[in-house]
């Protein structure tokens, strides 16, 4: 994963340097979208070829949903406490 972080840092610096070049930014955001499409397409192919995943899809879906449930509920509980402690005054004004 080191090359990933290295490349991202280079990108961050380039993006900051060229932040006032709208054409450059627009172009790079279009490329980003295209690569994401392609990678998800490739992931789809990998999944389609993988018989273990396909035959387990229901089970995998349930696991995914349970993790989301835990993550969202955890976030909501922390947010509730934070809201009561730090944000409620702002609201009452």
């Amino acid at each position, binding site marked *: *994963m080191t090359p990933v972080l290295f490349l991202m840092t280079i990108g961050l610096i380039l993006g900051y340097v060229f932040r006032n070049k709208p054409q450059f930014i627009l172009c790079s955001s279009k490329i*980003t979208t295209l690569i994401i499409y392609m990678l998800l397409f490739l992931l789809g192919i990998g999944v389609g070829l993988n018989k273990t995943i396909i035959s387990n899809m229901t089970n995998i879906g349930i696991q995914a949903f*349970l993790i989301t449930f835990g993550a969202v509920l955890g976030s909501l509980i922390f947010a509730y406490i934070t809201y009561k402690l730090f944000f409620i005054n702002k609201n009452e004004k």
Partner: protein
Amino acid sequence: MKNSIIILLMFIVGVVLGMYKFLPDFLIENDFSKYSLYALMFFVGIGIGADSNALSIIRKTKIKIILVPLCVILGSLLGAALISFFISEISIIEAMAVAAGFGYYSLSSIFITEISGETLGVIALLSNISREIITLLATPFFVKYFGKLGGIVSGGATSMDTCLPIISESTGKEWAIIAVFSGVVLTVIVPFLVPFVLTFI
């Protein structure tokens, strides 16, 4: 929203083509995803670096606003860690890595596929897509029972774009800036946190 639908369609078309092996051989034999991921991170980096919005929001707002994305990070990781005890197929670390996508399903599922394989990658994709869908549907309910930050923390990284309209509508416009801030912070953190959880914890 349009983007999410195209992404989902690309994935589904890929699955169908893969299932029926309706593909040219070079696509099956070669693994392009690693190098595409490298390219992707480079361009994501440019996007973040060029986003003047990100910096100015941080300058304008009070320090306590940082607590909001912090709630999402701690709450998501802890919640997923606890729920993992009820799922025999998934370890604590894996559950936390999936939750560390904060709804940013494209990037997190690609990362997790690369590090931990396709099964967990698909779980990450489905889990983070459902986080976005749950937020779109349940934000009014979350705001009512968990306070004004409810929709924002549920949306995670998607609070800055796809979920912003519903959050702004059910929480009030003055909370939109907090939603954008939290979404930006989480979006920037995802590509660092997901590999970190899987590699170092």
